[in-house]
């Protein structure tokens, strides 16, 4: 969940998607401005943080990067539970990875955090000549499912900062006076339900 300080927002963000889609590369580009041609696979999970300013607020992203292989799927809920935002990543040159992205979207929708900001990232946009998933197809899917969509390239940095920026703008802002229904303003569940929460 997103937490609010004085003009500061902490937001837990999780990256999900097929292995080799470029989750770690997107994070590395966003957090360190780097790109490795052969980014090694993620074992278990990795955690990063990065701050950016969006409008009037400074958002500190606490980013969970997860292992992509189906075999490790059972570990994912540990990392996406309580997340304020998710980027679901696929590889535009790989149809299967798009299918896998849809499954992640379904899972997050079922998991039932209606406030979660979900972004769909069609990564490796630099590989235009090997494209298998059209931007149009993905855009339609994203619209139907209430996600926002961008094609990105961790390699060329295309839209990488933008997608995080867009998420930052979409994060629910605190309105402490009104405390709107359905909006949870703390990053931990209340003390009583901690037993069922993740250790984030």
């Amino acid at each position, binding site marked *: 969940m997103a937490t609010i300080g004085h003009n500061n927002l902490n937001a837990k963000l999780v990256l999900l998607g097929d292995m080799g889609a470029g989750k770690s590369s997107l994070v590395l580009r966003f957090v360190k401005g780097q790109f490795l041609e*052969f980014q090694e*696979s993620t*074992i278990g999970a990795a955690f990063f943080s990065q701050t950016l300013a969006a409008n009037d607020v400074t958002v500190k992203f606490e980013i969970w990067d997860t292992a992509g*292989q189906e075999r490790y799927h059972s570990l994912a809920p*540990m990392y996406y*539970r309580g997340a304020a935002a998710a980027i679901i990543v696929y590889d535009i040159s790989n149809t299967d990875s798009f299918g896998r992205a849809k499954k992640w979207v379904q899972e997050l929708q*079922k998991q039932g955090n209606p406030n979660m900001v979900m972004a769909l990232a069609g990564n490796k946009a630099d590989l235009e000549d090997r494209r298998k998933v059209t931007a149009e197809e993905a855009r339609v899917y994203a619209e139907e499912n209430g996600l926002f969509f961008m094609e990105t390239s961790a390699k060329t940095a295309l839209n990488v900062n933008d997608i995080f920026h867009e998420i930052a703008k979409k994060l629910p802002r605190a309105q402490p006076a009104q405390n709107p229904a359905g909006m949870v303003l703390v990053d931990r569940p209340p003390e009583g339900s901690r*037993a069922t929460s993740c*250790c*984030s």
Partner: protein
Amino acid sequence: MHETELNDLSDDADYAASLQQGSASMTRSDSSRRSSSSEPDGAEVVYLKDNVTIHPTQYASERISGRLKLIKQGASLFITWIPYKGQSSNAKLSERDKNLYTIRAVPFTEIRSIRRHTPTLGWQYIIVVLSSGLAFPPLYFYNGGVREFLATIKQHIFLVRSAEDANVFVVNDFQDPLQRTLSSLELPRAVPVANGRSSSLSASESPTDKNQVRADGVAVDGSLSSIQNNGRQRQKMHDPARDLSIHVLEKFSLVTRFARETTSQLFRENHSEGFGGNERRNHSQSSHDYHQNAASIDVEKVPDEVPVAPDPLEKSPCSNRGEEAATNVGTFELIDSKEIDKLTVWGKPRQPPLGPEEWATFLDSEGRVTDEKALRKRIFYGGVENNLRKEVWTFLLGYHAHDSTYAEREYLVLIKKSEYETIKNQWQSITQDQAKRFTKFRERRGLIEKDVVRTDRSLSFYEGDDNPNVNLLRDILLTYSFYNFDLGYCQGMSDLLSPILFIMKDESESFWCFVSLMERLGPNFNRDQNGMHSQLFALSKLVELLDVPLHNYFKQNDCLNYFFCFRWILIQFKREFEYERTLRLWEVLWTHHLSEHLHLYVCVAILKRYRRKIMGEQMDFDTLLKFINELSGQIDLDAILKDAEALCICAGEHGAASIPPGTPPSLPLDTGLLYAQQDDEVL
């Protein structure tokens, strides 16, 4: 996403028969219930089985037998396993061991799944996995009754068989696979694992627990605690927390005076303000006070200012001077107490790696290794020179037998080469047309191709376009995924193969060495994460044994699942050290000198080095994981190996007893199918 279809047990022909047996045992247990005057009203023993046994070490001769019960109270079902009093197979198995493993009324709401194992030889056993992700050691049914046990559970709560693995029975109220996944992955409350102290702590969680456990009412805790206490009194009236502390103290005291002072100080703190005191009080109170008292335990927290007690291992590496003192656990260097702040010398100094001349002295004229144990010990303390690794690793990995001659090995290599080619040909002969209709093959090849191109590419051996060694990685992994089709390919395997190919160079030799390694590490990659869970569980027990304050810290910060050590264990620290250092660590681990599970002591040693930072900075799970990942490249291997050796010796048989039998890299207990996914006709 697991598209799991859950199989109901009622589709099984044997199920009805097992119900019969189930009710027979209920009758029997009913009478035993009445004989126990302390059993509260409303609690009913619905299953009772004698001679259910655990094997705390890898030796079948060492066992603790006990009585397994299912207790029903209201809508809740609880499992208990209480060891028999004074019937150890072995005098070395003390009351402390029994206490460590006793299961005191764990509700099924805390249990994720039960895995049944049916070895072709030996007893059936089950492994109970908690929703925290940890697991109890295997319970062997010497008198049979696993089927009946599962059938009884099925009568009372929702139990379904996993479609992915017919031997896994998922205990849960959720039918939806996603919900099940979610609920099964809840990170630990205080985890009630097989230990007197933590079992009481699990009760302490109930006041804050708003889920099913709580809904059953406070009375459950109270009444069941009287069962627990009763059981405990029947065994022997003593304080397990105190016992364990004293035990560790004893062990530590053998090491150095310094260690003794430090640890006694640690435990003093721990006892005066920590759990030990509460536990003692708890015993003398009536069951009505139990719940309330437990609640007070829950309040206990690491103080905000965190005055972290020093630990002998967290200091910087130190001088090797000092005399040696022989104790009954080994030889240690004595430490001048004036040097306390700088010192931690426990393990023996590392030696230079084994070189060709010395290696020759281990071989007889025909090439047999004459003293395998001495060789392993030698490598444990110094490793192997790089140019010798190709030869020596084949022994360490078990590809070549130590008593084989040069000629026999040469012959085996030829045989194995042709065997490799045969298996490789199985996928090489798949035509494009066939591949179109063979999704599993295409997927598998795709996974492997994605990973090999990003495995150690900065190393000259693997760098550059169209590097033939990258292709070898791919071919070997794909061939392995046909050799072990049930396991297939899993991320992390390329990390394990890369150093082997780097050393062996030869394709077939690398393959067979990898096969040998995977005999031990394969369970790390099991779909149900069983191998990883058992290692993480063992790690948590070892930290509890060797560093109580750190254990308590992890407990209070919801970090007891030890997932922050996942990468360390899955790929044997491959990402934590420079390449050459990883090779050294691996050959040391593979000697299995002192313990097959030295890698877990390596984990403890690293955590101990950084314990002050971890606790002082109040790291939560996120920060801890980030911190641990970023230790990569920062760890001093030699110092850690010395610490790990010392810890392993200190922990002694109690350390070994904390590691459930069959925990990787031990060879699997089952002599039957290694990765059985076949249907099973029993249930």
